[in-house]
């Protein structure tokens, strides 16, 4: 049985075009390769130390 109140909470306001710029800047674009690079940097930094 669908609970109207609970279902309504799942609906979130959509961003309009004016808010697109902020949405782009706030995007998290981290991917697996970024994580690998970070791990590599940390590994090489540890070796230097």
């Amino acid at each position, binding site marked *: 049985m669908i609970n109207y109140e609970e279902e309504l909470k799942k*609906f979130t306001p959509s961003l309009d075009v004016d808010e697109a710029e902020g*949405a782009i800047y706030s995007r998290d674009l981290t991917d697996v*390769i970024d994580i690998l690079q970070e791990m590599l940097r940390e590994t090489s930094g540890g070796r230097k130390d």
Partner: protein
Amino acid sequence: MKCMNCGAELNDSAYCPKCGCDVSVQKQAIVLSGLYYNQGLEKAQVRDLSGAIDMLRRSLKFNKLNVPARNLLGLVYFEMGEVVAALSEWVISKNIQPENNIAAEYIENLQQDANRLDIINQTIKKYNIALENCHKGNEDVAMIQLKKILAQNPKLIKGYHLLSLLYIRQGEYEKARKQLRKAIRIDKTNTTTLRFLKEIDEQTGTSTSFEPRFSIWSSRDNDGNRDENAASDASAKPAQPAFRETTAGSTIFNIAIGLLIGALAVWFLIMPARTQRITQEADRKTSEYSSRAAEADTRITELSAQMKISEETVNTANTQIETATAKTTAYESLIKAVNAYNNGDLDLASNALSSVDVSKLTTEGKAIYDDLVEKANGELLRGYKTEGISAYEEEDYQTAIECLEAAKAIDSSDYEVLSYLAHSYRMTGDTANADINFQLIINTYPDTVRADNARVYMSEEALAAAENGGGNQTENAGDGENDEEPTEGEGSGDGEDNYEEDNEEDYEG
């Protein structure tokens, strides 16, 4: 492909030719990104947009520089009405690869069609207002707004979901199903759409069909798809003959089959509908007549109650009239008696008094009545007694009996009246009546000279019966002639000796 450590161009080796870094994981990530892109593309091609988004996001998680995956993700977002999300992906894509990027064309197309972009932007703002109205409880307003939004932006899948949710809340499941059918044409595997449809199927007890209602028209519209599908299905299905020869017999047989199917369709589809319509009409008329009959019954009951009240009123009035009439009659008789008495007509006065209903008189009327009765009866008694005695002395015994009986009717305890009456009967030879009156004297004046004298004149039979039966004879005699019981009169003692002597002389003489 470039090394993630030094940026040098990589070859088939698992290590970077320049820095010697192990790039096998990087290469696997890029391969996986491409694999997910392919899966996303396949899903997008069959309009499994939710599945496509899932795959393309995974692809970008492995390689954010996968421009085709990002462009396709933006396109899928745009198809679902998420213009801002689509623009975001395309802008990022353009930044990653400024040249030879189709995302630039997408952005340019949108910017060129400013009117369309503005409409889409307005619909997004209105959607947000409608959502706010839902939260405030203004569902009716939200529904109107959502209908307008979806008319302007028919790809806004969230709008279909929200409108369906409102319909479900109001119990209008078929309308909700209709909206969700539109949503599922855009995205076939959207979990929200499928969840709402499952709820509707459970509530209505009928499963939602996703097949087009008019397959002929839809097949015409989807000719291109059908051709493609036909090509793909060709290997699975057996080849159909391109030409089939028919004979006259088979044509007639087919026509007969067609007629039979038509007749069966009429019988099973049209006739039940007609029967149902007639039944509904009959039910409606029955209900109408029933309500009319109920109204008539109610009216009859009301009128019966009014009639009963009227009858009671009439009865009360009649009773009052009868009472008043009886009172009037009683007073008229009383007045008549008073007038007759004043005029000296004692007979008329007596008759009038006898017709007076004493119970209808007031206390004052009763006093007048009693006074008049006393006066009139006294004078009448005296008149009858005088006349009777005179007639007796003149030996007119019949007249004497009449007058003395009248006097006895007024006062049955008067000794003079009883004595003369008894002797009058005795003189006429009516021994029975004479004995009755003598016995009355004995009972009225027991143990007196009057009683002894009466016994002297009584017949032997009556005397014997009186002695044997006690008072029986007296009672019988009284019942037969007079209902009055023998009483002792107030003035009986006063004149006892005078009358006794007179009578004795007369009787002996």
